[in-house]
């Protein structure tokens, strides 16, 4: 488990990320930061949560440390551990600890994927104690005012209601993300890929159609991210329908009926 120790400055975002606000999320995010409140971002994959965090970190000029959560993530993975190098033991801070020390923003992506016994470490950080106990070193870190905790989850495929205890949930300021409206989604696709607007509009139309199959066997339709990727393929000279097939149709499903239906949608839109 080679834990790469990146220097914290490398997490500083120096160039303004493109983020198109869809509501008052920026204001709320800034206000939450000012009040030292943790953030909970919810929404389907690829709808801009990560991008929003990048933007927020840039606005606040704080380093952003992102951890993608998964089953095997342990408390040590977050907080830190002793490592043995040759014949010495050395302590290595985990990403959460580094973020606290540096007064950065720690973003736990897809928090429900982590086990409950792992996520308990964020509890004292999430409430007004704002502290991180490092049991192995008998140390308690107090988070500086600049530190912010943010978590995300996707309510679509796993309800978090049971996983994040209501008492925990209620400490977070929640921002609800969903796919942008067609005009703005097209704008994002244009900005991110450089394709022309007419084409972006049609891609967005196709995306919306795939999202209509929610009850028919395709729980998650094409995300904004997939649309952008498809547009990039087209920018690289791939023929439109082939790009849609590779970038959207095949990425969404393995079911032959659904693939055929998605193919027909491509035919109808382009």
């Amino acid at each position, binding site marked *: 488990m080679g834990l790469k120790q990146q220097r914290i400055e490398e997490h500083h975002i120096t160039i303004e990320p493109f983020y198109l606000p869809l509501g008052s999320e920026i204001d709320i995010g800034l206000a939450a930061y000012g009040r030292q409140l943790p953030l909970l971002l919810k929404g389907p994959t690829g709808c801009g949560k990560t991008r929003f965090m990048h933007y927020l970190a840039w606005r606040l000029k704080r380093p952003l440390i992102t951890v993608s959560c998964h089953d095997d993530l342990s408390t040590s993975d977050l907080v830190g551990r002793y490592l043995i190098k040759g014949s010495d033991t050395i302590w290595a801070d985990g990403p959460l600890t580094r973020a606290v020390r540096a007064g950065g923003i720690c973003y736990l992506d897809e928090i429900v994927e982590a086990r409950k016994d792992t996520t308990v470490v964020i509890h004292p950080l999430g409430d007004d104690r704002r502290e991180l106990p490092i049991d192995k070193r008998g140390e308690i870190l107090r988070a500086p005012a600049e530190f912010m905790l943010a978590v995300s989850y996707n309510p679509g495929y796993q309800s978090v209601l049971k996983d994040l205890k209501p008492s925990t949930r209620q400490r977070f300021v929640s921002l609800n993300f969903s796919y942008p409206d067609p005009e703005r989604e097209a704008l994002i696709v244009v900005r991110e890929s450089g394709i022309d607007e007419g084409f972006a509009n049609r891609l967005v139309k196709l995306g919306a*159609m795939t999202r209509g199959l929610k009850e028919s066997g395709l729980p998650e339709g094409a995300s904004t991210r997939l649309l952008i990727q498809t547009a990039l393929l087209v920018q690289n000279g791939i023929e439109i329908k082939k790009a849609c097939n590779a970038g959207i149709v095949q990425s969404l499903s393995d079911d032959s009926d659904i693939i*055929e239906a998605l193919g027909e949608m491509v035919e109808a839109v382009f």
Partner: protein
Amino acid sequence: MNHQQCREVFYRLVSPSLPNEWEVDDALLPLSQLHQQQQEMLLAQVPVIWPISHSLCLYFIEYGVGALTLLKPHHLAPWVRAILGAYEIGGLHGARPLISDVRRTFLEPLEADGEVSLADISSHLSLFVSGVAGHSMQVAGDLLAHTDTTTIFLPERMNQFSTRPVNRLAYTLLVVLHQRFCAQGTLDAQPDSIAAGGAESDSSRSKEIVEPLPVIRFFNSFSHPVLAADLYLLFETARAMRWIHHELVGLSRQLAERSHEFMAHFSHTTMHTPATLLGEAATAILFGHQPVTQGAIHLCRMAATNHSAADSITAVADGYRLVADLSAPYERPFVLAFVGELAFAKAAGERERQRLQRRHRFISELAGLLARQIEPEEKMEGVRGRDASAAPPLVLLPADKEGKRRVLSSDNESRLLPEELARLAAAIEADLGSMPESYLSAAAGLAGGGISGDNGQGEDGATSERDNVLVLDEWDYRRSGYRLNWCQVREKPVESIRSNFVAAVLARRQAMILNLRRQFEQLRTDQRFSGRQSDGVDLDLDAVVEARCDFRAGISPSENLFVRLLRNDRDIATIVLVDMSSSTEGWIGTVLKEALVVLGEAFDTVGDQFGIYGFSGMRRSRCEIFTIKRLTESYSEEVRERLGAISAREYTRLGPAVRWAARLMKTVEARTRLLLILTDGKPEDYDDYKGEYAIEDSRKALQEARGDGLHTFGITVDQQSHDYLPHLFGEGNYIFVDDLAKLPHRLVEMYRLLTS
């Protein structure tokens, strides 16, 4: 095969039926003249057709011989499907021509005209149109294209156009057109209020449907009602086509490319009748052909300026004036018949049906929410008058900033609506304009709890909802398709009976249960350490010592020096489906119940979520699920009493029970979800749910369940045969218990193996 051999094969195929020898002999006579291979081809269809109709099957064997020389192997399945389809619609009489005159009735349409059949494409066409609509829609066959707003009906076959791609495209066009008719309000036209010049009034919408609908009355006020309706259809088609040109550019382009091929079919005459004028205008609108006749040009211009269903209704009178003075009897032009018809009454009926369904669901779910003895979320201060007697019993509050909805009861306690229920409320408000008071009071009444105010109106809805009918599709392997909305499944409670059955079992099986408790407790301690990891919660001393030694010895030491705590939280939910058919009579009362009692102890020890449900019933209209222990309920004394009260009922329609359980499982959150099925034999119902049909449907239902991420496992005590088991459950997904006395032990053992 000679005649005698053919006969033997035939009797074997239809057994246990014993048809008359003379009938069979006649039917088999031509068959014995054929090559072995052809004989086999025909005979292979016998098991498919025989269960549907014996006479159809005999006719098929006798006269199908002639067809064999014409058909290619890949035609066989669609041909048989067509025969069965025709039989279902027109009986023996309807099916015969397909067998006796296969060239004209089957092959010519298929090959010469590049025919496309709906059955071949309906599954993905419905997905396609769901995407276009943005919500789920169905596709089904009927004579003329039309829609009731949830299902789009299309002709079973498309063969009017000369090539396959064009026929295929015609289906796409029709399905999109009719989806648009739903989406653009074509079917909601309210000419009365429009004629009155006012805005649409809400009162007319919530009124009961009286016949005929205002829009039908409106068309009837013309001397040629069909012409008036066709004018409206024409104008609305124009609106839909404009949308297609704008939104579905690909489809629009394909239509343009194929325009001449469509046009070739809808030829024009020089006669000027209303029908030809409408036909010309319609082809112009659909396929972009330039109208030449003055009347048609006018109609197209009129069509171009309509922007709502109300506009189109208003334009009908003008259009009618324009064309109808060419007085001639009106017969629908081909091209409009191709577009289909607007089924206003059907759509209104469907809307009403959905409205009722929403009402039932809302009332029963809200009542459930109110009845649950949860702590009210918060006290709301002074939101309405505190005077409970003056306030309505329940108030549905508008969405708050976060989009959450709450209901406020007369004692000022508010409860948060779960998302599902909030969505339902929003749908009701969108449909009716606001939440009817009667829905809320019915829910309050149903929940009891002293919140009165039920005006009796909700009673019917509540009771019929209480027995919870779920309508499910069933798989028909013969046509490789689902029979839609085929089975009705109801959930029924099992009355608990006070008895000492459970206590007696617990006493008798004491030793076994003790042993089992120990085993299952071990499963419960769900952590284990694993050493020599590159990182972990603690040092692995052995490894550290070894590494030091290595280091001293000048060998580069291992860095895998940790123990890691591997946790396997048992996050398991299990549903046990118990066959309660009459065939279980002998053993259900004893061994089966005993096995369930023992299993219940195991579940209870290990702390897994579990539910026990029995299933039985008779015919597709009465599939029943008997609730013995709900998934969410604790393993209480009452549950144990219900276990004691299980008894044999009627038949075994396995498919719907599995689908029902799979649905229930969808609402359950657990990493591992297991469906255990306990049966004593093949699935079978009173009607034609037997043999292969029953096995194939059950197998399909199990496949669907696995597709939903469930694990399925069958435990059977079928004494007669079990050769069908691997096919039904899948290799390795079942066990067979031959000694009934061992069932309790095997069942528990199996559960332990499956979940550890």
